[in-house]
């Protein structure tokens, strides 16, 4: 699974950070950071993050 967040769309709603805190986080400047290739154990949480993002900024591709 690869994750891309469109940071132009992202408005720091934080929903992804709540849904998958090990994959998504905020840095000191309030910018979103994330793991582009999360481990298998996180995939369900990442899918929950995709559904929770109010601006649909998270794109996931699964082989």
């Amino acid at each position, binding site marked *: 699974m690869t994750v891309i967040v469109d940071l132009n769309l992202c408005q720091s709603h934080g929903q992804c950070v*709540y849904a998958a805190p090990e994959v998504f986080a905020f840095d000191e400047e309030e910018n979103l950071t994330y793991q582009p290739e999360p481990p298998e154990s996180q995939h369900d949480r990442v899918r929950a993050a995709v559904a929770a993002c109010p601006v*649909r900024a998270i794109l996931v591709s699964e082989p």
Partner: protein
Amino acid sequence: MSPLRRVVVVGASLAGLRAAEALRRHGHAGELVLVGDEPHLPYDRPPLTKQFLNDGWRPEQIALPIAPGLDITWRLGVPASGLDVADHAVRLADGSLLHYDGVVLATGARARPWPGHLTPAGVHTIRGLDDAAAVAEALSRTRRLLIVGAGFLGGEVAAAARALGVAVTLVEPQELPLLAPTGPHVGRFVAALHRANGVDLHLGSRVQGFTSNGRDELTGAELTDGTHVEADLAVLALGATPNIEWLAGSGLVTDRGLVCDEHCQPLRDDRLPAPDAVAAGDVTQWPHPLAGNELISPGHWSNSVEQATAAAQTLLKPGTAPAYRPVPSFWSDLYGTRIRSVGLPHLADSSEVVDHDPAAHRLIVAYHRNGALVGALTANHTSQLVPYRAEIQRHLDSRPSRTRLVHD
């Protein structure tokens, strides 16, 4: 695979669509009918008081994506007019009857209208796409906008209008904006934001009546503080009222919403859950442990999404889904300041400012009830919400789950 042949979802908006998606994801292979009184396919409401007003967004930009393969039978432009729980049927206003094996009630809420008399032309509310389109169009011509109610919606309309250079008067009966939902610290912060952006803010004041010209067009309003405000456009932001009238006679309990248990099941008069029925979104009220199991109705985007998913699971496999007790979260954008909250700040009996940087428009407020954390709100500081949310989650997890709202 689920044995339900036909599921009818009433209300074709955020909660209804997300419930439909979750039903398919969790194995519903039968017929799936979505009934909606609006002529539009589902769309997202939050942008209606934001980008739709001041960034020229088009309706296509707020369409909610409909996953391919959902295989939905749409019944749009026709309201449901009745529900027969015993007979498992939804009545539509065009006279047709839709029998169901499962039903999702997701009729949301509407803008509270002006109490009493008719209002002159130029007085609007905003709940739907057509309302917002009318206001967006009027904003391009107006000279002076009056907004009644300085809650989140009213505040966002003010911010959008200021971004367009429109003169704005904002009238709020309370002593501060957002006092009931977020308390005095946030109220003062938001009042300062409005004033810094040139809004003529009237607090502790009400609109006594609108004034109009001979063509019944709005010219202004008389306020209880004695001011006469000139305006050729007004937006009423008086809150929302749930769409429950169509359920009259169904035997379902309504209060300030459709009363549900912790499993998203609406309750009948005998206080037992109605069979094969669930509900989600702004129409609902349900007991939440953060509120000491009093009924809550957050009326927020994230709740509609999460509750719709939980409701779909209960409908397909009653009794297996965990109790629905989310940590609610909410956002609002005001003049580029990002206001975000978790938990239920309105429940608090005390609130404290943890950090405030007026120059950077940054704020952190923590909310407690009986000494326990029930919420937190930040402005331009979303990262700081994460630990608060985790603490509220721990607090919720430590509460025993009440499996059913069984009544005495």
